[in-house]
């Protein structure tokens, strides 16, 4: 189980919404499903993040009706959010590959000597 940091949560939300508009519950569920529950996020933590992102105009919120006929607040990526997603995807990919290289490297012994 990993603690999810604030910036990570934002990335996850943006990534989720790339599939299309979704309400908070849906987003939480999707994250759980995709990560097989490995990223344990408290559902409540999602909402301040969502509202903050809406105020930053990364996502837009609108009230809608679910398939079961309930009123729910749907979030959707804005053009600004789409850009942010792209940027953060690149950043994450770079980060992950860098970390992977470090992990791969640590299985070999670092070369000794002074130069």
């Amino acid at each position: 189980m990993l603690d999810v940091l604030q910036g990570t949560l934002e990335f996850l939300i943006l990534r989720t919404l790339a599939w299309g508009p979704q309400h908070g519950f849906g987003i939480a569920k999707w994250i759980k499903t995709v990560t097989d529950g490995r990223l344990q996020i408290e559902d409540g933590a999602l909402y301040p993040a969502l509202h903050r992102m809406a105020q930053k105009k990364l996502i837009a919120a609108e009230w809608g009706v679910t398939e079961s006929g309930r009123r729910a607040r749907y979030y959707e990526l804005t053009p600004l959010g789409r850009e942010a997603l792209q940027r953060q995807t690149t950043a994450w990919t770079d980060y992950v590959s860098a970390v992977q290289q470090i992990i791969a490297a640590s299985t070999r012994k670092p070369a000794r000597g002074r130069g």
Partner: protein
Amino acid sequence: MAVDRDPHAPPAWRRYLRFWGPDPAADVDAELEFHLASRIEELTKQGRHLSEARRTALAEFGDYASVRREVQMLDQSYERRRDVIESLADLGRDARYALRSLRKSPGFAVVVVFTMSLGIGLNSTMFSLVNAYLFRPAPIPSAERLVVIGNISPLLKQPHEVPYRDLQAYRELRGVFEDLVGTVLNTESLDQGDRTDRIWVERTTGNYFSSLRVPMELGRGYTEDASNRGEHVVVLSHEFWSRRFAADSGVLGRTLRIQGESRTVIGVAARVFHGFAPMVQSDGWSPIDESPAARRQLLDRQGDWFNVYGVLRAGTSVDQARTALSERSRQLRADFPSTNKGVEPVLVPETRARPAITVAGPLPLMAAVVLSLTLMVLVVSCANVASLLLARGTTKHREVAVCAALGASRWRLTRQALMEAAILSFSGAIGAVVLARWSTRALARIRLATDAPLFFDFTPDWRVFAFTTAAAVVTMLLAGLLPALRNASASPHAALVGGGRSATDRAQQRLRSIIVVAQIAVSAIVVIAAGLFARSMRAAETMQLGFKTDNVLMAQFDLSLTRYDSARTRAFQRDVLARARALPGVENAALAARVPFGYSNNAQNVIGDRATRENPDGQLILQNVVSPNYFRTAGPAIVRGREFVDADDASSPHVAIVNEAMARELWPNQDPIGRTLRVVDQKEELRVVGIARTAQYMFLGEPPRPFFWTALGQHPRADAFLEIVTSGAPESLIPAVRRIVRDLDPNVPLFEVRSMKDHLRNGRALFTVRLGALFGGTFALLALALATVGLYGLVSYSVSNRTREIGIRIAIGATMPNVVGLVLRQGVTLALIGVGLGAVAALGITRIMSSLLYGVRSHDPLTFVLGPVALGVVSVLASWFPARRAAAMDPVRALRVE
């Protein structure tokens, strides 16, 4: 659903507020509750028990209450930020919209802004004047506690300066005053080597600079030590220092020859400080001699008069000071009955005693009347603007109706109309400031007929700007609110269906009619008030003052400037008189120490021969020293006895001439000829040899004032006015008079060379009356013009509205006079109602002015007839042109008009 609710959550009914706008708190609840409900549903579908499902869902959610609070707070602060930004954006949108729509009708905008600029600018100008005289504090610290003290004597009946002894007695009141200073404006000679100049120096008590805390530019002011030691020092005014010494700081320590003595320059006063001489820019300040011997003389003599200023102790009220002062003066009356009998002190805040306590009386009333009249002009111009905006509202009727139909709120429409008015009145205010700057500068250039260095400063300060802003806001509200409200109540349906001719339209027409009536009524008041001022000026100009005013030339010379001794002075004065009389075109000539309505007066404490030790009738009485022939030349008529002759010289018994008012006061029901009187401090008795008719001496329309004359031959003095009576235009003799004096001694300068008429018309006597008439006339013309434009606009508008009707009338045979009559009737009816109302109101209002009027009553019938007639004529003209246009209309084209 029983969620663990926040105990501080708002009650459920608050959700209904959503009907009026978004409620972020309720939205958050709904969103979070949806989440929990969905999760619980999911879990129960998986077969969990409801209560267990609920527990699980809440556990997965985390701290519900704190999440809820956090999200709500986030939303609220965001909402607030957005509200501010949005309302600013709305305002910007309104402004852009208003500017765009104003650009589409530039004529309208220009007329409105011009009208407002006139109305507000006039008010700012007049307020600048009033501000300079009544509001702007003196440029010293604790100016708000600065007071002026004068004395009132029974026969002089008005405040005058205070003798040194009284000043010293008042100074003892240290409980109420920080200190009191005395100052008197003198003309003194400044020797410049090759020439002698006359400068205006305030001679003050030694404490002047220290107790008033006068701000300095350079050096320091003198102190009481200087006057107690009789030191000869001078402080220069900033203006004099810049003019004469090119603002050279090396002037400190230099010695100037002033009045024949060497005075060391010890300081320069700050630029803002002009001294306390009324309206005069003093050139400098020097202490009087208060060394023990000189002080004893000052205390004994009654001939030295001081303007007294002082700073109240913090926390002392004007009333407390008055009480203390009158207590002290009672003691003075008991101690010095021969000089202080009946003398009462007056104390007023300095701002209420401008330009000087001796002449300040009617100024506040004058200011109030002038400001009221200008405010009336502002109201008239507001009415015009309101009327124009209303008319514009109608032209924009369809546009507004479309906006309303498309869902613009009433508030939004009102706001847009107000925004338009705000932009217009803001532009109007800018125009007003420009106008006021120009006109106050022009007014400051007006010169009174005097050689004294008069000084006017009408520079606007924050008070003027505050006033202008207030006037602009009032204008906006007066002119903009009514049309704005009418806009808001526009019914889209009626406007779109009815094609603009509707009941609202008629209601609007009625409203504009009311505005025009009000406008004409207010104009009538202004016109009548102005008429009264004009009539008063005519009356004042032709008023019998009791002395000769036509064909009199005056010129002043002061032989102390050239340091003549008494023999030379006598010879020079005799030669000047002889040569002046010999000039062709000169009928007579005489010398006098003072001219009537001059800038200074002499007064003496007089004891008549009826006085006893128990009842010493010492009274302050105005006096002049004159040469033989004075009465025949320019003076009032001698009704009994004789006037001064050459034989009245130092070797013969001293004589006096009194006026009838003085005779009545001192010797009621007795023949004054042969009686004697004595001036306190002078040992010679004066025998009355003649009685002159009572004239006016100081103020126009003053009550009969006692006055007496003594002979120049017996009371020699170095400064005198030459007065000559000419057969032709007095000005034509100016070069000849100058030549006479130059021939006798080129070093003797002449001052105040002008005709008596000029001296009266452009001097103290008539200046305020003429200024009042000038202001009144300007206001009246403006009000008249504005009201005419208003009436013209309304009649033209209603003609264009009735195009079809008039077309039909012409088509079925109405003649041109019929149509003209129809239109004229409308305009003239409104004008008559307005004029009638205005005249009635004026009857009440002008009564307040009555004390400002000379020789004309406040309900002067001629004014009350001519004023309304003028308005009537103008309003007929204003309606005539639209009427002609209506009558000349082509009925075929008229009927085609939609």
